[in-house]
């Protein structure tokens, strides 16, 4: 019962955090999809199916937070690079701000267990 509760809670948390992690992973650089996945893979607590990242990238692009450029690659198929737009950078700042406040607030509520 406790495990199920924790699993549900952590799944919801991961879903909510994924977009923030993706935008932060891109940050001020330009990355292509696979590199973003690889960077997210390093966050142990995120535990995601790697395929979930790509639909989110597409959605963020459609919403104008990301822009893409396709470049030919000698090693394989053309690579699609993602970069934050101005609107994306702005929303990322707000999201980080919000997350920071939430984390600080939640940490402040912690007592002795």
């Amino acid at each position, binding site marked *: 019962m406790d495990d199920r509760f924790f699993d549900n809670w952590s799944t919801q948390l991961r879903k909510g955090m994924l977009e923030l992690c993706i935008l932060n992973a891109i940050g001020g650089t330009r990355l292509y999809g696979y590199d973003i996945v690889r960077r997210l893979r390093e966050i142990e607590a995120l535990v995601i199916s790697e395929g*979930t990242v790509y639909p*989110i990238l597409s959605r963020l692009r459609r919403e104008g937070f990301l822009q893409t450029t396709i470049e030919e690659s000698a090693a394989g198929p053309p690579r699609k690079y993602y970069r934050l737009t101005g609107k994306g950078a702005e929303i990322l700042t707000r999201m980080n701000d919000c997350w920071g406040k939430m984390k600080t607030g939640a940490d402040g509520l912690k007592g002795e267990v």
Partner: protein
Amino acid sequence: MVELSENARKGLDDYLRQVRSYLRWSKSLDREEVEQNISEHIERELEGAPEPVSACTLDGVLARLGSPRQWVPPEAMHWWGKLILKLRTDSEDWRLSYISFGFLLVGVLLMFLVSPLQVVFFAGSFITARAALAAAGPGDLGAQKWLLYPILLTVSVAFVLTLFLGPALLAGIIAAELHEVDWVRRDSHMGVIAFVYTATVLVTSLWWMLLGLISCKRPGLIREPLRPFADRFNRRRGPAISGVGLLLLAILAGFVALYMNGAFDIFMR
């Protein structure tokens, strides 16, 4: 391009085929873009792997990539896509609930055509609803109840009415018929209404006392047909049912005694 073994190629083709089948339900996703993302990801994952890449290696990559279904998130699906997906992939108990509700709707529609087939559909709806109930187990039914409760509630109400009042109705009808028979009319010394009333209440009180006893011994006989509405019915309810039966019998005895002593003669004139 990374070279795949024949089995690995088949595995990849199968994965892409499944992704494409989900993409058909998408309202906004670009099929080419999704396939490009998949091939780019696989290509990069398999860089440096010994070629031709075996099916086993590719399976590991596809497993990390996740289910083909997740390439089309719910918000990118048409409503009908979500519905089909729900019907195709939800647990079996949900499908039973849909079937049960479907049978009920067909049964209701057939009522307008005065077809005896409606009984078959109602029975089918009830049986599948009970199967869904059994599959769902003792926990909360959640939203499934909106599909299952209409038929379960209808049948439960009919069952309760039949169980508690059926014998009374039957007794009333039989008493009304019997009163036409000469020897009954001669021996009963009662008017038709009093005779029917007495017989009905007598049978009801005796039946309820018996029901109370049955509930004490085997509460499941009443609880099970009424699932999930009478899940809290237990043997402690038995004395209450018998008590009501006994009370009815006492009231009837008083009524008959008063009747025999002519207390109601004033109304009979």
